[in-house]
């Protein structure tokens, strides 16, 4: 069964809409620390999901591009670094936690990540990544809200 999110954004390439809907539902008024944790976990989950298919070298190159592009718009993101296990948020926690653009900046990273991967794979991985995204929202400690319909995303 498709999730409500999936139904709302039948166009798989509409990553912006998907991320916004997910973000609205997952974290209405989180603190900066909660927000960072939420994105750390989310991007970590997406990394795990993608690395299996694409491999570490390719994924590193893609994330490097995503972070580079996002940093041009939000310099605070230059504190994010790509490591073998994924994106490290340590720098951001110490230096950018109070930035007023934190939510938008992290949102951009997620959108860019999904968009670039979508382009490169002709959206082949998109359903799986969207499903992974929904799962994080439901299960993680950073999750704020959820409903039964989201169970479909896990199936």
């Amino acid at each position, binding site marked *: 069964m498709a999730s409500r999110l999936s139904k709302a954004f039948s166009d798989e390439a509409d990553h912006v809409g998907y991320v916004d809907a997910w973000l609205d539902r997952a974290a209405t008024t989180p603190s900066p620390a909660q927000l960072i944790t939420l994105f750390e976990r989310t991007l970590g989950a997406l990394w795990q999901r993608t690395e299996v298919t694409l491999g570490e*070298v*390719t994924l590193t*190159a*893609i994330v*490097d*591009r995503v972070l*580079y592009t996002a940093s041009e718009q939000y310099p605070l993101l230059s504190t994010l670094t790509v490591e073998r296990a994924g994106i490290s948020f340590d720098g951001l926690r110490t230096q950018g936690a109070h930035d007023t653009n934190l939510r938008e900046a992290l949102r951009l990273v997620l959108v860019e990540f999904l968009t670039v991967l979508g382009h*490169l794979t*002709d*959206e082949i991985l998109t359903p799986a990544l969207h499903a992974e995204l929904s799962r994080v929202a439901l299960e993680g400690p950073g999750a704020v809200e959820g409903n039964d319909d989201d169970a479909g995303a896990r199936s």
Partner: protein
Amino acid sequence: MKTRHPIPRVETGVRNLDAVFGGGGLPKGSVTLIAGPPGAGKTILAQQLCFHAASPKSRILYFNTLSEPTAKTLRYMKQFEFFDAKKLEQEFHFVDLGVIVRSMGLEQTSSLIMERIKKLKPSIVVIDSFKTFDDLAKSKDELRKFAYEVFVKLMAWEATALLLGEYGAHEQVTNPLFSVIDGLVTLTQRESSGEQQRFLQVVKMRGTPHNRDEHPFVITSSGIEVFAPRVTIHREPHGEEREPRCKTGIEKLDELLADGIPRGSSLLIAGVAGTGKTVMSLEFIYRGALAGEKGILFSFEETTERLLAAARGMGWDLAREIERGMIEMVFVPQPEIVVEGHLLMMRERAAALGARRVAVDSISVFLHKIKDPQIAREKVFQLASIVQNTAAVGFFTTDIPYGSNQISRFGVEETVVDGVILLSSTEEGFERQRYVEVYKLRNTAHLKGRHSMVIGEGGIKVFPRYAEDVAESPPAALGLAERLPSGIPGLDPLMGGGLLRRSATLLVGSAGIGKSTMGLQFILEGVTRKEPGLIFTLEESPEQLEATADALGMPLRRWVEKGLVEVVYLSRERVRSAQFLTILGDTILRLKARRVLLDGVAYMQRGSAEADDLRQLLNKLVARFKRLDVTSMLTAESRSLYFGDAITEGGFSPVADNLLVLRYVSLDDALAPAIRIVKTRGSEHDRSTYAFHLGKGGAHIARHPLKGAVHQAPSGKGSPARKSSRTKSRL
């Protein structure tokens, strides 16, 4: 259902190359290696593509390595028409990696490359040459690692990459680079058909149904142009015939072609040198223009000036049709022929003009560099496809080798065209006579066999050996109700009251006995009945005939002047027997003649031709006369002076409805002319022999028949035949 999105493409801007890639260009984000020896055109190809793709939204990053100083690259690049200084400033970024590669090694170079890519975010990245890294790598592993990292980063940035390098064919299996690239394009040059030619081959292109053939290409001031007719020229499905078929407009040729040539057809115009192929193709184009059909002639032999001069010689104002935009002439000198390139040129020119007629003179020269008949066949097929796809009609001339049984240069072209017109010539007497034969024409009931053809003022004139109506069914039987007076006093009562309408009467007799006079009487009688008359004379000139008529008080001259009688002299030196049917038929139609005299049929035959041929021709002539509602009289000279067993020595009896034999008889120890009616079809007739005399008004037949034996020659008398120089041996 999930939608499948085609991989986006980068148009190359190189003519026909996108079609070779099979999908409209290079796949976006792919890494393609352009391999080839120095001077193969790798850099030009890459630069041409880059200039084409460069735009404010599509920037180019061009890395130059050790192979060539950037200054040189820029200087040479400026020579090409694709060079755009404005783009070079704004969208085309050159980076010289020479020093870095030499001093810092591969790892630093990789970082620098990525630095530049991140900064510019280019759509296309070129590394010229990547072979430099091969040379600098300490091991295959190092090269593999470097190449892989660079490619992955290029992929992550969605950059389409072109790597250039002097890689040989053997490296495709040994160099690790070849296993990680998405595409491989090789550029080579080698001798082909006696000259150096460049070839491009897409050996590998992931995710595309690319063509794997080698395709010739040239480098001109416009850049690279790839010729790939196998890829770009396809025969489109041939729909139903909706348009009227093409009539060539060449005199009488269309009679051979029956309904005409189906649109989309191509015909070979085949013959040895000098048989009129060029003239026929030229006239085909010219007549088309006069009929409102645009035409284009591609000449690989004669220059346009020479063709125009030839046209002027025929009386055609070809230059005016060119000015009117109805005709285009394209001359390609033989040494400059590039078959694949000119095939595409012909397609484009024909399409741009909207040509309904396409002539190629000649395909034997156009394809002269090709040694393999199968390749020649393929090229002719492509040419025919061009014609078919534009619904035009093509005339392709081809030289047949002397002394061969082929009907084309390569012996295979005829299998891919829709028709073949064979032109030939034979030596007859002191002249060469031309012939035309529609050897093959698909879906058309064309007239078979060889037909006489002449080329002269006005162009080509074909003389069909027989008309279609003659060939298909016999003429209707003579009606017995209507009889026409012969105009020869005393003759009609002997023939049941006159000549049946549409009948043919053959007068056979000795030289000077009065055959022509009787024929004139027959014609002049018709005039008094308002039946226009036509006299074809094969021996005497019209002036001589009129003088003879004057001497006998016959008003031939007057009726000629009034236009009711026309005398046509058919020179035995100029008119071939194969042309008579057409000439006579056309003249009868023009004058609307009702009576025809054909005086001296023996002269229709020349040289050593068989009597059978003449009989066949006379049969066709008589049948044609009857179909044209003409009552005819034919005269034939005989060497027999006296009545004997042989009635007609040439065996012409079956040809005519009426057979009248004129001979000499001995009367009162002198020779006198006499007539005997041997045959009248559909009538009772008098079988007696009648004397006649020639005097004022012509021949007058005696009222009473001669008595006793009349076939004996008088003893001791000289033969009149020996005094005649006109005695024909066959009659």
